[in-house]
């Protein structure tokens, strides 16, 4: 499969593409929030002040992603309508780093809970 060239533009599906991307970000934000709630539940029995941090980070990340998607959607739709070549950028590396950090924090949290019990 070869990467598509810049001469292929079909703006008829532009709103659809923006909407699908917006919905994908929404689902991602909700997933972060759900994981945050689960991590808060997991930290429930611990008295360490940092135990709730991963859960709170997940919930805050979910909220920020949902809000950012909401703010970005009109700009994305406008860029698509104007047939602008570049889509508004987003910090994707930050999202991946956050998931890795939450994974490591969850490991630390669960090991602490297991060693307590």
């Amino acid at each position, binding site marked *: *499969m*070869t*990467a*598509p*060239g*810049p001469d*292929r*533009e*079909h703006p008829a*599906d*532009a709103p659809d*593409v*923006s909407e*699908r*991307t917006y919905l*994908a*970000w929404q*689902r*991602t934000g909700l*997933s*972060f929030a*759900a*994981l945050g709630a*689960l*991590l808060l*539940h*997991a930290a429930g029995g611990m008295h360490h002040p940092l135990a709730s941090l991963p859960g709170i980070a997940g919930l805050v990340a979910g909220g920020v992603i949902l809000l950012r998607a909401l703010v970005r959607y009109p700009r*994305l739709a406008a*860029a*698509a309508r104007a047939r*602008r*070549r*570049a*889509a508004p*950028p*987003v*910090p*994707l*590396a930050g*999202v*991946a780093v956050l*998931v*890795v950090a*939450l*994974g*490591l924090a*969850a*490991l630390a949290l*669960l090991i602490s*809970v*297991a060693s307590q019990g």
Partner: protein
Amino acid sequence: MSERRAEGRSWPGWWRPPKAIRSVGEDPDYRFTLANERTFLAWIRTSLALLAGGVAVIQLVPNFSVPAGRHALGFTLIVLSIVVATGSYRHWAESEMALRLRRPLPPSLLPPIIGAGVAVVSLVALILVAVGAA
């Protein structure tokens, strides 16, 4: 790696921050950029689901008859989620560079990794449940 050094890069392409990746080549059709972004997000959600599954197995599932079986399953799922999150960014970056340079899209290692990982975890879970029921 020698080819990359010849191009003047000291790091693999995917290690670059998104801003540096966006400075390579020329902007592709935005629909392909957004499709690549959605694929990245789908992998991130998969990673989050694995992470949530790992936490849930350890916190919510009753003990298996085999000691530490629950923890082994949960920790494996969490490690798999970290691998998927890292791989998702790598694949996004490699695909974005290919789109910008109008090169063939690179293959992804993520489907076989997650396929094998989930199959192994499911098989171990099945064995643990069967041993407990026997």
